[in-house]
């Protein structure tokens, strides 16, 4: 197969995705596209989102039609230069299915890692032989590693990217040794050690942002850079009504309206997203863990750990990315960070609502750090 022809495959968003439906093509056949351009709208049972081109070139073939359902990795389209003859493209498309079937590797699964005082669930993507400093992604309160499903695959093109479940969250153990930012930071550091990661770029969302920043303060040698996404830790305000409603909601209707607060566009909240959250909260130990963390991190309805004053002397590069319409952590908190990007049309889940831009910002930032 010619290297000049590049396939666009069905992405894998989240651990449970096995197939996706092509809702709409956003570009015409023959169009010039750049990596990061939004080219397709794809629907899974859990979420509908736009998909960005992984390649730059001319979209020579739209192999999948609107309405088609393809397995993960299935051929959506083909990018090539104008110079590649049609016959070669056709041969590529024909060979692709056979080659994909022959080379089918099971998608990466998260693994359980024994850290000092807890078991962490970690998903690693990216090349095993990369010598680039890895990236570690830390979700927020009530979230899990799948919150990075639109970011982690993209960012793992040229380096190892780890996404971790915090203690009490996702598939990690639910018992806590402490619920404050310092204790959670220690937990993440011990997981890094268990994974053999000496030093990493960190990206943290919300509570995960405060943890990333705390790590840069307490263990700067282990942190190459920090990307704060709608992060806690920069000011006292927090939407405590959301936190309490998230802990309290045990019915679909309540949970749906609660998590809609997270988004600029509430249509992102699917039935499956709500279902998954309710299922997570029913697991033994989750409610006490969320309670312990909320009481420690947001005592009295205010953020307890404010690290904004530590930024000035910090030897670690820091950037902030915020959704302009964040209703959980005020966008004004971004002003504490000199290198900041406020994206419109996004709320607290800016990394889900504007993944192309967030991924571009993270890539560029860690490449320069």
């Amino acid at each position, binding site marked *: 197969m010619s290297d000049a022809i590049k396939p666009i495959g069905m992405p894998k968003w989240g651990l449970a995705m096995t197939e996706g439906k092509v809702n709409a093509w956003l570009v015409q056949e023959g169009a010039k596209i750049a990596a990061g351009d939004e080219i397709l709208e794809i629907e899974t049972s859990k979420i509908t989102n736009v998909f960005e081109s992984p390649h730059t070139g001319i979209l020579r073939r739209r192999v999948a039609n609107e309405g088609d359902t393809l397995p993960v990795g299935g051929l959506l389209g083909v990018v090539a230069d104008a110079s590649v003859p049609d016959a070669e493209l056709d041969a590529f498309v024909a060979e692709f299915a056979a080659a994909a079937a022959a080379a089918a590797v099971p998608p990466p699964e998260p693994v359980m890692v024994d850290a000092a005082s807890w078991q962490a669930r970690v998903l690693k993507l990216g090349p095993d032989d990369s010598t680039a400093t890895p990236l570690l992604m830390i979700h927020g309160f009530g979230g899990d590693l799948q919150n990075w499903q639109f970011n982690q695959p993209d960012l793992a093109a040229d380096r190892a990217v780890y996404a971790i479940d915090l203690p009490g969250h996702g*598939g990690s153990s639910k018992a806590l040794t402490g619920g404050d930012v310092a204790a959670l930071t220690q937990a993440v550091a011990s997981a890094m050690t268990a994974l053999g990661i000496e030093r990493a770029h960190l990206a943290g969302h919300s509570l995960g942002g405060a943890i990333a920043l705390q790590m840069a303060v307490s263990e700067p040698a282990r942190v190459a850079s920090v990307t704060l996404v709608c992060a806690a830790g920069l000011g006292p305000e927090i939407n405590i009504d959301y936190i309490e409603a998230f802990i309290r909601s045990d019915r679909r209707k309540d949970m749906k309206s609660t998590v809609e607060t997270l988004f600029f566009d509430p249509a992102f909240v699917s039935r499956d997203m709500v279902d998954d959250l309710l299922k997570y909260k029913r697991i033994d130990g989750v409610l006490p863990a969320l309670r312990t963390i909320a009481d420690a991190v947001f005592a009295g309805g205010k953020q307890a750990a404010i690290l904004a004053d530590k930024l000035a002397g910090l030897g670690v590069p820091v950037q902030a990315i915020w959704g302009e319409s964040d209703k959980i952590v005020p966008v004004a908190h971004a002003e504490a960070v000199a290198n900041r990007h406020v994206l419109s049309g996004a709320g607290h889940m800016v990394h889900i609502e504007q993944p192309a831009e967030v991924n571009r910002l993270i890539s560029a930032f860690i490449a320069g750090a």
Partner: protein
Amino acid sequence: MSKKSFRTAINEAMAQEMRRDPRVIVMGEDVAGGQGAPGDDDAWGGPMGVTKGLQPEFGRDRVLDTPITESGFIGAAVGAAATGLRPIADLMFVDFMGVCFDQIFNQAAKFRYMFGGKAVTPVVIRTMFGAGFRAASQHSQCLYPLFTHIPGLKVVVPSNAYDAKGLMIQAIRDDDPVIFFEHKMLYDDMDEVPDESYTIPFGEANLTREGKDVTIVALGRMVKMANEAADLLKKQGVSCTVIDPRTISPMDTDSILESVEDTGRLVVVDEAHPRCNIATDISALVAQEAFGALKAAIQMVTPPHTPVPFSPALEDIYIPNTAKIIEAVRKTMR
């Protein structure tokens, strides 16, 4: 998290609770393997293999084979619950429950009330129900309406493996007597079931489909039929909400009423005999509490008022199915 069968989900729930709480015991016919002969250990795990593996792990002190005497071992389980254990009694087929009604209706269900709240009876009675197994009229009934009728009992009817595990753990931890209904046609159904322990609260319905035209309420195996009907109807332009109450005592009446207030149309699917069943109960509830919202007469999809036939051809006609549900939904749309 991995795909597990309905059978495995219930087995895992019991095993995890037995590890967590030494007061949890299992008793019933053939649950440990036989009548105590060494070669019989764990031979069966009950007629459907649901208790398989419990006897080797927890021993015959906690996994007890009983004589074929429901009146005796259900009474023993109720007494053990009242005096500090948390027994799970396996009553094989709900059709046999008649010989121990006194133990259930007059004893287990009444202790908390008659001792002024000073007694609890944390017993779970597992039992198989439902038609489709070619098991004739004495092994195919639903009978959950009888238990729903009795104050003091909780009645659980899971429709899938995920719910079965969470509801079973909740049942074992509950301080009241719980009758846990397992549809025999669901044991091989697979679902994503977390490895960890989790609970699903009683009295909280699950909406398996959400639509705006018609509300379908269904229980147990009928939830599958209702989902199929809703998916087919959606392609024809009719969008249905499917409500699985999961527990019928207590029952999540709010979710049913709220949905009917949105859709204005109600179809209730019930595999139990048609008189005084859950379909009539829910129909009465909606007729009384949401009459003004109804745009059409309520439809009930049930078997006819006859014993479950042994003839496979007749049994298939007897059981409510997807086509009958679609027809009922269509009636509400006229």
